[in-house]
């Protein structure tokens, strides 16, 4: 009975989403006030039913109701409660429900926080978001209903994919989905602005905090996935340029460009058409990612049960949403003129260059992801485009971007000059070259050109950001700086940390695959790894082996690691690496295979300097995004617009 109520709630949510999109959109176009007024209450009611449906699916998981096919295939009675809950979004059907719920939550948040937005604009925004809800709900009800029954119910369910049975991964998908779906908000604002024929600074101001929050979710989601891959897959890597990773990275790149471009549109009224296009791109790439992952056209470790029928539905959805919005853009954007002039040397130019580089980088990732698909589909052979392509393309593209960051943050709006900029960056430039070159020599004790380049860039970002902050704080103190400014500071310093992490990890890591007898040890990176044998391990839904490795440095005991090799009931072997984490290095041990009868194992040992800085950088960046989104300017400006009673605040 419970699943039927959940199913019925979904149908009601679909009906409400149809109402939420039809009446407000038509009402806004034709000027029917009562149709416009219906938008907010209907959007909130839609959330009630979507949430009810989600709650009932969770209930079915907690009750282990195996008469529900989705529960039977993704849960069993011995699964810990945490993973029963995360199992709800652990596979295709439930994760779609999670998308729909997230979209509904975001929509309701817009109705709550966007009090200053004129009713007609609000109706359009909610109408667009309603159309997206219709798409997701129809997709679920027609091709992937999570409440489908299984008769007769099996006595025991299958297992949740063991890869997902990890606290980090329980959170990784929701954060990613929040990011993907969050980009629907700037998208809806952009479309609404085009429908209303007012492509001005107002929509940019309203969208900025939403874009930042969505970007933060996506950043954290990607970082969590990368961290998880590092400790769970046992390969010691943190990024693989896997098609599904790329699917999350492309919206991130477009979203990063969008955040910067929105700033220009809001403050200076420039790049109007371009910003709209980026808002469309960011969300379209999120949908594209969904298509690539779930239609099964690409292969990757992220195995969603996929079939071409679902792929066809998403493709239709994609064509409607992306094709429709780009067609609207083609018609409307050609009429938009930005009358704002700026010089070649100015913050606008720097941000434009930032946008161009990010979009080109994004296009390069898209090409690398789709190229094998294209060749394979045309029967030109199977190739895989791996890290060599991406690294070769990506690093030369992003290095100038990082160099630009320091100058961009410092340059003045509208007009600046090299004579004016040079004295400001002089000290930073010299300091970053000196520190960047010395760091590999003094700290890492082995000079490497690439390491020096990476460290110079990282120090450059760090010093220039400090310098901007110092200049800005002159006369008003650090406390006088806006949260927006702090957002920029943390965002950029996060990038510096990230660069330190990837540079030093990729250049100075050492790894070794070897066979160790019980009691045997191996020395690497100044540490001695001694293998003390393995013991049998019995978990709730797996069994396996647990090794013990003692690590010593100069005879002093540093730590004892316990890498595990688990065999889940579903038959999937999983590696749990033993990691000793540290700010300047990680020591990483993974169990390979047992060898012989004497208790020997093949082991994989890694010494990874500064690998933590990669995720630390992502955390700092995310903090920056949150600070920016919390800037009181958005609220003050919002209140002012509301009291002016004018639909748009013309700043440009």
């Amino acid at each position: 009975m419970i699943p039927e109520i959940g199913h019925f709630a979904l149908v009601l949510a679909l009906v409400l989403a149809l109402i939420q999109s039809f009446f407000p959109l038509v009402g806004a176009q034709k000027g029917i006030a009562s149709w416009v007024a219906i938008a907010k209450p209907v959007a909130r009611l839609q959330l009630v039913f979507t949430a009810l449906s989600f709650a009932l699916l969770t209930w079915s998981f907690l009750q282990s109701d195996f008469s529900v096919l989705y529960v039977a295939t993704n849960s069993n009675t011995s699964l810990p409660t945490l993973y029963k809950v995360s199992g709800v979004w652990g596979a295709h059907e439930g994760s779609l429900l999670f998308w729909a719920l997230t979209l509904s939550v975001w929509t309701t948040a817009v109705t709550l926080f966007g009090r200053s937005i004129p009713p007609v604009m609000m109706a359009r925004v909610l109408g667009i978001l309603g159309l997206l809800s219709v798409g997701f709900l129809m997709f679920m009800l027609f091709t992937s209903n999570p409440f489908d029954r299984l008769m007769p119910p099996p006595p025991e369910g299958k297992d949740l994919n063991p890869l997902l049975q990890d606290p980090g991964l329980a959170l990784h998908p929701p954060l990613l989905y929040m990011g993907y779906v969050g980009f629907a908000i700037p998208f809806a604002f952009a479309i609404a602005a085009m429908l209303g024929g007012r492509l001005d600074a107002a929509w940019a101001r309203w969208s900025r905090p939403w874009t930042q929050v969505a970007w933060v979710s996506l950043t954290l989601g990607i970082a969590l996935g990368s961290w998880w891959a590092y400790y769970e897959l046992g390969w010691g890597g943190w990024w693989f340029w896997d098609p599904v990773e790329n699917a999350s990275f492309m919206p991130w790149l477009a979203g990063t460009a969008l955040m910067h471009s929105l700033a220009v549109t809001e403050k200076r009224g420039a790049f109007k058409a371009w910003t709209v296009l980026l808002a469309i791109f960011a969300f379209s790439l999120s949908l594209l990612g969904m298509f690539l992952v779930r239609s099964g056209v690409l292969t990757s470790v992220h195995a969603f049960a996929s079939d071409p029928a679902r792929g066809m539905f998403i493709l239709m959805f994609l064509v409607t949403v992306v094709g429709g919005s780009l067609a609207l853009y083609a018609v409307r954007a050609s009429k938009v003129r930005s009358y704002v002039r700026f010089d070649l040397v100015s913050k606008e130019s720097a941000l434009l260059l930032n946008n161009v580089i990010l979009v080109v980088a994004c296009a390069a990732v898209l090409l690398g992801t789709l190229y094998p698909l294209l060749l394979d589909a045309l029967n030109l052979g199977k190739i895989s485009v791996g890290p060599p392509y991406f690294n070769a393309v990506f690093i030369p593209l992003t290095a100038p971007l990082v160099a630009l960051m320091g100058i961009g943050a410092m340059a003045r709006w509208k007009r600046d000059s090299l004579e004016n900029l040079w004295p400001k960056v002089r000290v930073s430039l010299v300091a970053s070259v000196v520190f960047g070159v010395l760091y590999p020599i003094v700290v890492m004790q082995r000079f490497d050109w690439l390491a020096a380049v990476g460290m110079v860039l990282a120090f450059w970002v760090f010093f220039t950001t400090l310098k901007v902050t110092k200049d800005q704080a002159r006369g008003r103190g650090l406390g006088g700086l806006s949260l927006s400014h702090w957002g920029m500071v943390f965002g950029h310093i996060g990038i510096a940390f990230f660069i330190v992490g990837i540079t030093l990890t990729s250049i100075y890591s050492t790894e070794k695959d070897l066979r160790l007898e019980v009691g045997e040890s191996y020395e690497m990176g100044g540490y001695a790894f001694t293998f003390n044998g393995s013991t049998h391990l019995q978990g709730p839904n797996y069994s396996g082996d647990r090794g013990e490795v003692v690590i010593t440095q100069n005879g002093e005991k540093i730590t004892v690691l316990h890498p595990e090799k688990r065999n889940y009931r579903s038959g999937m072997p999983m590696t749990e690496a033993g990691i000793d984490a540290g700010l300047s290095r990680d020591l990483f041990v993974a169990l390979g295979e047992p060898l012989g009868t004497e208790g020997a194992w093949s082991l994989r040992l890694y010494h990874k300097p500064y690998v933590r800085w990669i995720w630390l950088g992502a955390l700092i960046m995310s903090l920056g995004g949150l600070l920016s989104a919390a800037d009181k300017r958005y609220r003050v400006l919002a209140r002012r617009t509301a009291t002016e009673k004018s639909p748009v605040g013309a700043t440009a």
Partner: protein
Amino acid sequence: MSKSRAFIPLLAFLALAGLFYFVLMKMGKGEYNPRDIPTEFIGRPAPSIDLPNLLDENDRVKSSDYAGKVWLVNVWGTWCPECWKEHEYLMHLSRQGVPILGIDWRDEKADAIDFLKQKGNPFVEVGFDPNSDAAIDWGVYGAPETFLIDAEGIVREKHAGALYPQVWQEKFAKYFHAQQPTE
């Protein structure tokens, strides 16, 4: 912005959507399967197998004994649910006279012997491979995997996942028709 330039993103997207449509149609017709990972060994001489016999401690299972025949190598383990599923069909093939060499991969010896006793043994011989010696030589990704080796000792087909009648008809049956039923 000029009128025509504003249409570029739309046209680029439609081209992309066209490609996706094309790929999905091919997938729907079964002409394209991205999960079909080709093995490097197809068209090459089969790697030799020399493993202890699961059912007879004093014997070894050797691929050289199969020279001149069309035969299958099936990699399995009792820990693998898909292997349980395909077992019935392997029994059927074995009754048809198809010679199958089993490689019991990363398994417990007692479990494997028990499994074959209870459910029947479709294999001519079973090599015991707890340390992935043969599995690595054959580039096995997971279980079950089935390879077909022709009379010249060349690997002709590979199938990852459980063997079903449909797969058999599509990929494997033709090699046995050409040669007329063995034995």
